[in-house]
Every structure is written in structure tokens, then in C-alpha cells.
């Protein structure tokens, strides 16, 4: 049966050819397109996350692997591979996709954490800054801080701008620097005004006030004590307190006077050297003090000698207790200012030669000491 054998052979060969033809399309595609697209999607996700800026090492690692595989994809794309052969390139792409997905998840979390840190820090520093502004304003010590408040303000504006741009690391950095600046302000205030919280210094001031009151009692005359922290002038007669008036100080009055034009109000023992009535002063009524006294001169000479006061600066003078020139310009340059109705009462009760003692504070729990304490606590918290 030769015809039958030939037919069997033909059938076998036909089916074999069909099977081979059927298997060929499966071998042509070296790397499935979806594997490439998946890695491309991961790359897009990483770019959207700005991984190259935010976490350059992570992105560099991904990009190096991706580029290495991409070059292999381009080289391998025309190769025919049998279905049963392992496809190393596809395995590597799938692995990169998996690693990349993990990186995307991790960086998304890290970025969110960073965003939250920046947001919290901005809120914290802003709150602290507002509090400090209020506290500093409360004790009239803005000028002690010089340019620092503006520096803080600018840094906070930068922190906001970077936050809006999604540059959370830079935002956090600016907010951190603003926090440091605030801490420096607290240190500066503590350095400049620390004597208001110094127990020995306060005991010294209390003694000066006590001596003045005793003098008033012994000499049966008037005496004045001014407390800068309380912004209060107290009038004594025969050692008895007879009146207290609120006062305003120089524009930098909280500081200790050192030289002309510093806006500070001096501390020390003085006397009324002359009285200026209506028409003799532009400030309604004035009690001129004998500033500078010997102690002021000694300190001034020493500070000039040590270079703490510029040679061009004079010691100043004409410190007075006076009224208000006009309510629109109710601020003094270093004197003690009272409202006019109270000034006339004081003026009429005081003679030339009346002792005037100006002190920083009379109580340990004075407003400045309390503010410094609060700022110290806040500084530790920030």
C-alpha cells in the first residue's frame, strides 16, 4: 500500500508545518510591550514626584537600570526567541517595574512626610513669631532686635513660596532658619534686657528707691521714683507715696542710656535742675534733670575707651520729665513723658533740687522679666 504510506507522511508533514507556523508568532516578540510600558509608567510617576530633585540617588539608580535595559530592548527587539527559552530581559524589566513601584510608594510617603513637616514648621514658626511680636511690643523692645524681625519675616515668606512650588525641602530649610532667627532674637533680648531679671540688680534698684524715699522722709520734701519696667512715676512727700502716674519713655527707653541719640532713658539718681513752665518748653511743662551724673560720665568714658561707644557719639543731655507736645507725636527721645493734666499736677508739687531716681524695675516679677522667661521657654520648644 505505497499510496497509503505517502498519504500518512503528507498528513504528518502538514500538521508539523502547521504547528511550526502556529508557534512562530509567539517567538517573534522578544519583550512584551506591556513590560516596557509598565516601566515607562513608573518613570513618569517618578518624574511627577520630582524624584530626581527630591531623591537623586533613588532616581539615578532607577534611571541607570532603565537605560541599561532600554539599550538591551533596542538591541533585542528583532531577535526570535523560542517560547520555552527564559526571557532574561523581560524578567529584568518586570523586576525593575516592581522595584520602581516600591520606590514610587516610598518616595510618595517620604514626600508627604516632608510636606507635612514643612507645613507644621511654618505654622509653628509663624505662631511663635506672632507671639514674639506681641511680647516684644508689650515691653517696647522692638528696637533691641534691630534687623532680625525683618530677616525672620523674609525667611517665612520664602518658606511659603517654596512650599507653594512643592519644594518642601527648601521650604523646611527656610522655616528652620526663621526658627533659628527667632531663637537668636530671644537670646538678644535676654542679653540686652537680662538685668530686668537679675535679682541682684533688682535689689540694687529697690535700694536706690528706698534711699530716695528715706531722703524724702528725712528732709520732709518731695521725691520722685520712676520704674521703667512698670512705666510708672511715683511722687513721694515726707516719705509717703502721694501719687502715681503712668509714663512713656524714650523710643528705646527700655535700654540703659549710653550716648546721645540712642533713644534710651537713663537709670540712676538725679535731681530736678530747673523747672520750665508754660512758654519755656515746647512740651507743656518740663522738669529738667541733671543728667549726666558722675556715674553716667564714668560709664560713658569707660565705654568710649573700650570702643563700645563710637568716638563720634556725645554723652547727651537735656533729659526731662515733661508733658506732651501734641497727641499726634506723643513719644519722647529719652525723657520721661506724662500726659499734660498729670504733668501740671506733678509740676506744681515739685521744686528745683527734688531727687528723681529712675530704675529699671522694682519687682522681680516685672513685665520684662516675665516676657524674657516666656521667650526662654518658647525658645526651648521651637
Amino acid at each position, binding site marked *: 500500500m505505497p499510496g497509503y504510506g505517502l498519504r500518512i507522511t503528507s498528513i504528518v508533514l502538514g500538521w508539523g508545518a502547521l504547528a511550526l507556523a502556529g508557534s512562530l508568532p509567539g517567538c517573534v516578540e522578544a519583550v512584551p510591550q506591556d513590560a516596557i510600558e509598565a516601566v515607562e509608567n513608573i518613570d513618569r510617576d*517618578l*518624574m511627577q514626584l*520630582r*524624584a*530626581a*530633585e527630591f531623591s*537623586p540617588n533613588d*532616581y*539615578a539608580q532607577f*534611571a*541607570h*537600570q*532603565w*537605560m*541599561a535595559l*532600554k*539599550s538591551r530592548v533596542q*538591541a533585542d527587539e528583532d531577535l526570535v526567541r523560542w517560547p520555552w527559552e527564559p526571557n532574561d530581559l523581560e524578567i529584568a524589566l518586570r523586576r525593575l517595574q516592581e522595584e520602581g513601584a516600591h520606590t514610587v510608594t516610598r518616595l510618595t510617603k517620604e514626600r508627604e512626610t516632608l510636606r507635612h513637616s514643612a507645613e507644621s514648621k511654618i505654622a509653628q514658626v509663624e505662631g511663635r513669631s506672632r507671639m514674639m511680636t506681641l511680647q516684644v511690643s508689650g515691653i*517696647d523692645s*522692638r*528696637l533691641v*532686635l*534691630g*534687623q*532680625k*524681625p*525683618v*530677616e525672620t*519675616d*523674609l*525667611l517665612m*515668606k*520664602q518658606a511659603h*513660596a*517654596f512650599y507653594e*512650588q512643592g*519644594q518642601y525641602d*527648601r521650604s523646611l530649610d527656610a522655616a528652620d532658619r526663621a526658627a533659628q532667627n527667632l531663637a537668636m532674637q530671644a537670646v538678644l533680648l535676654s542679653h540686652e534686657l537680662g538685668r530686668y531679671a537679675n535679682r541682684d540688680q533688682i535689689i540694687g534698684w529697690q535700694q536706690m528707691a528706698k534711699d530716695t524715699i528715706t531722703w524724702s522722709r528725712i528732709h520732709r520734701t518731695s521725691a520722685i521714683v520712676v520704674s521703667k519696667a512698670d512705666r510708672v512715676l511715683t511722687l513721694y512727700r515726707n516719705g509717703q507715696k502721694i501719687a502715681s502716674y503712668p509714663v512713656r519713655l*524714650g*523710643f*528705646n527707653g527700655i535700654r540703659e542710656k549710653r550716648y*546721645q*541719640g540712642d*533713644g534710651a532713658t537713663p537709670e540712676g539718681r538725679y535731681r530736678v535742675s530747673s523747672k520750665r513752665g508754660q512758654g519755656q518748653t*515746647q512740651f507743656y511743662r518740663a522738669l529738667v534733670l541733671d543728667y549726666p551724673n558722675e556715674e553716667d560720665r564714668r560709664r560713658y568714658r569707660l565705654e568710649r575707651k573700650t570702643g563700645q561707644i563710637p568716638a563720634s557719639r*556725645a554723652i*547727651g*543731655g*537735656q*533729659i526731662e520729665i515733661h508733658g506732651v*507736645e*501734641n497727641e*499726634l*507725636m*506723643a*513719644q*519722647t*527721645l*529719652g*525723657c520721661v513723658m506724662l500726659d499734660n493734666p498729670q504733668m501740671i499736677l506733678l509740676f506744681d508739687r515739685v521744686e528745683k533740687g527734688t531727687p528723681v531716681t529712675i530704675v529699671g524695675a522694682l519687682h522681680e516679677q516685672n513685665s520684662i522679666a516675665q516676657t524674657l522667661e516666656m521667650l526662654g521657654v518658647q525658645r526651648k520648644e521651637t
Partner: protein
Amino acid sequence: MNSRSTMVPVLCALLMLTACAKPPTEQIAAAEKAVSEAQQSGASTYVADEYAKVQGSLAALKKEVSDQDGKLAIFRDYGKVEQLAVAAKSDAERLKAEATKKKDEAKAAALQAQQVAQEAVAATLALVAKAPTGKDRAALESIKADAEALKASLNQVQMAIDTADYPVAQTKAVAIHEKSQAVSHEIEAALAKIGKGKPSAAKKK
């Protein structure tokens, strides 16, 4: 001479040609140079992701060179290396151009913001100079300190520009501008208030 004897020299010549395959050093060097130039032009900052990729391509290229070097001489083929080097060079040149463009734009934006800030600060300082040296000094002295601080901060903008940190320069300049305007408004309000009063003559204090 039969056909076998004529094939021998041809095969030998082919073998010799293959055995002499060498890495395309010039193309590799050109690619490396282009990547380096892209980096210098700020690509790592302004087109960071693209730059990371071109660095990846360069690394892939070097690995391919190493792979080919590890083969027997007759099997070496640097065709892919050459292809990668050409692509890397081309990409790096594109990145250099893009980075330069973006950097120039960032610089221009920073310079413009700087100019606006300078003008705002100058206007603020002019207002401060107008303020009377009369009695209401605390507010004015405080404003003066603010204006001086703004003036000093302009140096920081310049420093950031000098170090090509344009984002910092721009945000700082914008902040100075905003703050300067706020201070100017404050001065105008203070001037309006003080203007109603009579400025005092300067006196010793």
C-alpha cells in the same frame, strides 16, 4: 588554482578584520564630553531626570564596552557601543541646550525680581528719609530698622545670583518686594499721622 585555495585568503582577511575590532573611543569620548558639558550647563539641576537618564545611558555604554572587551577578539562587536555613544552625545547636547535655556529663564526671572525689589526698597528708603525727626520716634525708628534690614537683604539676593541659585534669589527678592511694600504703607500711614503735627526741632537727649 581551485576555488578552495581562493577562499582561504578571503577568510583570513575577514578573520583579521573581525579580530581587529576596537571600541569607538572617539565617539565614547565625545559622548562623555557632551554629558560633562550638559552637567556644567546646569542639566543636573534644571533637567534633573533627563540628565540622570543620559548618565544611565553612559553607564550602559561603558558596560557594553566592558562586555565586549571580555569576549574573545574574534567575537567582539562594538557596533552597539557606537550606537549608544552617538545617542548619548545627541541626548546630552539636547539637555545642554534645554538646561541653558531653563537656566537663562530662571536667571532672567531672578534678575527681574531683584530689580523690582531694589526699586521697592529704594522707594521705602526715600519715604523713611521724608519722615520728620520729631517726637513720634519709636514707630519711625522701628520702620527705619525694617528698611535698613530690607536694604541689607538685597545683598543676599545678589549673593544667590552670584552663586547661580536663582530659585533662592527669586523667592528672596519677591519676599523683599512684598515686605518693602508693607513697610512703605506703614510709613505712609505714619507720615499721614505725623504730618498733622508740627515736627520738633532736634535737641540733645
